[in-house]
């Protein structure tokens, strides 16, 4: 089939947003309010993005429940949780601006749970000093995305293309000026031409076997950005959420919100021991996610796991009505999928790959990457969370930096040359289209689903919660071997371009391989244990590496990892980290 001279529709806009989760939608609203024409392109239907999976809440120091809370404490918690390799400026902006972003959501129609005084209620969460998570039961992400979705579609200048997959960023004179994409329904091609691109397409959890992520999370944004020369940062840092479902097999990996522990749930091993006592006796179950995930992992490895290889998470000491009102979707999820009534029996949980702290390197103020015209926000951007993300900091990240990147992208689009004056080299287009269509020419090629499963097996075995050099090296070799095989992968047999998941997966695995290789290479370089990155051959934290990020660049010889010093934190921020903060004791009224 001759696809190289394929025809495509050309669509023009000012700001092209790739991804329609929290960051993409917040960015789109900001860019449109800044006067830009905005086109949001998403891989699934609108409102289905991974943001809906966020359950616990959005972290913002509004001090509605604990009067002692302030942006300073939120900043300190975020930096300490990230084991100090966070971009401190992002952590500062995030802590200062998230309350405003949450209140703004309320003014756009979001309905949060209330305190008895009628303010937005805030619940306690892992490693947050004070109750800080504004929430709606255990479906905060849904409320956030629905509010932003409604706001966006009613904002003048915003248009949405659903079920369209971008597979190439187009550049001209060193700046990003558009993207190539294809429509899932019929496989037709679109060339987007724009003044600036905002990447907000989320994480790459699908490169692991056990994950809370959906089929969409294949790291497309990171791969697209890397392809045009954007730097990646902290690629070794991926988060295993301590509590995913383990049984039955079909639901393995589905998230069990940290809200269960926030509302008093305790973890026990098969002997009934509350084992967190031995790992973090101060914060117990509400320790940071890296600590709790490793604790469960260690218990299972020591033979103290549950029958299906996890730990028990027990909230039965709370009243059934309390559980059903505070954790309604957890109650429903276990009852329906595991036939477990969580008001009467403990849940079985084990770590599940949940989130990337890793991602594209961005400027803290604007979300600008090192490539002109390319902006990034949300899970695929790195910096805010450092070596470990605190629960609730993701939704606030989306809002704060989605807005900032949207503002900046609109400004950039205004300054950028008119699209009819930019010349896109046809070779760039032909090459990308040929790569997308290649699987059709290999009717006997390997199954993309089988290859995807192999990538998942390699990453799960070679870059697990606790890593070591020989495993990572072997993993890297296997990933390179898989890359060669992916080049000759087929569609799984069918020649149709209409809604063909086999063809789509053949493309997805290309993105996953970029993410996987970057992760393995960075993990090899970080010769210490820090936050989510634990190494059995370097079990200690190396203080010298507290001021280092590992940055990945594309070179003609392949992927290059370099250590980069983190700029010194200004005195006024460093001082905040060293203060001590009063412990929170709930008031009688709450």
């Amino acid at each position, binding site marked *: 089939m001759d696809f190289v001279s394929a025809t495509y529709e050309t669509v023009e806009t000012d700001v092209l947003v790739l991804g329609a989760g929290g960051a993409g939608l917040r960015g789109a609203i900001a860019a449109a309010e800044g006067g830009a024409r905005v086109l949001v392109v998403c891989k*699934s*239907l*609108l*409102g*289905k993005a*991974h943001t*809906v*999976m966020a359950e616990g809440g959005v972290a913002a120091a509004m001090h509605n429940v604990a009067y002692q809370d302030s942006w300073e404490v939120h900043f300190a918690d975020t930096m300490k949780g990230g084991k100090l390799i966070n971009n401190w400026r992002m952590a500062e902006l995030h802590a200062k601006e998230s309350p405003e972003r949450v*209140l703004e959501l*309320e*003014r*756009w*129609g979001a*309905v*949060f*749970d*209330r305190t008895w*005084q*009628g*303010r937005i209620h805030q619940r306690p969460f892992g490693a947050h000093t004070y109750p800080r998570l504004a929430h*709606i*039961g255990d*479906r905060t992400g*849904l*409320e956030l995305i629905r509010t932003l979705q*409604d*706001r966006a*579609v009613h904002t003048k200048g915003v248009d*949405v293309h*659903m079920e369209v997959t971008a597979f190439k960023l187009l550049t001209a004179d060193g700046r990003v000026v558009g993207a190539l994409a294809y429509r899932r*329904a019929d496989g037709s091609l679109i060339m987007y031409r724009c003044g600036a691109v905002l990447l907000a397409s989320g994480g790459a959890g699908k490169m692991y076997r056990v994950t809370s992520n*959906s*089929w969409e999370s294949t790291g497309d944004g990171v791969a697209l950005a890397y392809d045009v020369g954007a730097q990646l940062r902290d690629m070794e840092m991926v988060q295993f959420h301590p509590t995913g479902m383990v*049984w*039955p*097999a*079909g*639901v393995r990996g*589905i*998230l069990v919100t940290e809200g269960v522990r926030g509302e008093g749930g305790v973890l026990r091993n098969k002997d009934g021991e509350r084992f967190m006592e031995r790992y973090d006796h101060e914060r117990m179950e509400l320790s940071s996610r890296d600590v709790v995930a490793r604790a469960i992992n260690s218990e299972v490895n020591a033979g103290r796991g549950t029958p299906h290889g996890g730990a028990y998470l027990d909230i039965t000491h709370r009243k059934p009505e309390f559980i059903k009102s505070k954790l309604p*979707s957890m109650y*429903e*999820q276990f009852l*329906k*999928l*595991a036939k477990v009534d969580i008001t009467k029996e403990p849940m079985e949980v084990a770590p599940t790959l949940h989130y990337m702290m890793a991602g594209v390197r961005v400027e803290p103020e604007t979300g600008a990457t090192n490539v002109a015209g390319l902006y990034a926000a949300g899970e695929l951007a790195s910096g805010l969370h450092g070596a470990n993300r605190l629960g609730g900091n993701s939704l606030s990240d989306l809002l704060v930096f989605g807005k900032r990147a949207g503002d900046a992208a609109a400004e950039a689009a205004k300054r950028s040359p008119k699209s009819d004056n930019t010349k896109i080299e046809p070779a760039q287009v032909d090459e990308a289209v040929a790569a997308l269509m290649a699987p059709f020419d290999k009717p006997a090629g390997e*199954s*993309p*689903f*089988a290859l995807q*499963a192999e990538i998942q097996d390699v990453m799960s075995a070679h870059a697990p919660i606790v890593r070591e050099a020989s495993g990572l090296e072997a993993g890297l070799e296997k990933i390179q071997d898989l890359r060669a095989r992916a080049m000759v992968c087929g*569609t799984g047999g*069918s020649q*149709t371009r*209409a*809604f*063909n*998941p*086999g*063809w789509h997966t053949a493309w997805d695995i290309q993105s996953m391989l970029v993410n996987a290789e970057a992760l393995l290479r960075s993990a090899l370089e970080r010769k210490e244990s820090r936050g989510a990155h634990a190494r059995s051959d370097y079990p200690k934290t190396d203080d010298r590496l507290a001021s280092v990020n590992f940055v990945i660049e594309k070179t003609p010889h392949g992927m290059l990892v370099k250590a980069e010093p983190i700029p010194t934190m200004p005195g006024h921020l460093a001082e905040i980290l060293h203060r001590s903060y009063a412990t929170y004791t709930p008031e009688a009224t709450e």
Partner: protein
Amino acid sequence: MELNNLDLKIWRGDAKSGELVSYRVPVREGMVVLDAVLWVQANMAADLAVRWNCKAAKCGSCSAEVQGFPRLMCKTPIADYGNQVTVRPMKAFPLIKDLVTDVSWNYEVNKEIPPFTPSEKDLTTSEPWRMQQQDVERSMEFRKCIECFLCQDVCHVLRAHDLKSAFYGPRFFVRIASLEMHPKDVLDRRPLLKGKAGLGLCNVSKCCTEVCPEHIKITDNAIIPLKERMDDVYFDPIRWLINRRKPRVKNASSG
């Protein structure tokens, strides 16, 4: 642990033609219908079109008709059916391919509904709003909606009569109810309900409530109260007389 084999019949085809195709799927304990469909996709039919995302009943993507009943496939255990299950796409929407339908009409409807509108005073105050839990709870029930569109699929006004041009369907009555019952919303959407939304066409058969995976009491808590509000303005004979003297409803467009 393989228990037995499932005879999974999936509707395959496009808008022009199609048929039920039988697949033998090894069943594992706790398997849901979506697992079985994805197993077929990974092992037997790579081009089998199906929508899914969260696989945890939170996103509302994997809607289909399982043994004729509109359900989320990710939430439907195989064990409920024995060793034979038939899965078809939603009937109320135009078919794209296999289990995937064109639901874009729903997104167009949503654009027509005037969004959340607080008062000028609430909008300009620098103070955070105060609302009581009991006051927001009514709206919250409706905001649980995950837009799976199963209620739209089962509603006979859309399914049997295809009155999409005259009727918004249960999903959007839930949406309007969430706005109308928001303590801070001041817009009156009753003219819209009577006009383009076509609320009068609903004859409260409660099919929508029955299929809602979020257990929203669509008919009792959203549709009937909206009908009462609408009737108050348009069908109360005394009000009708007063209205003849002075038109009073400041409103959203009646379409």
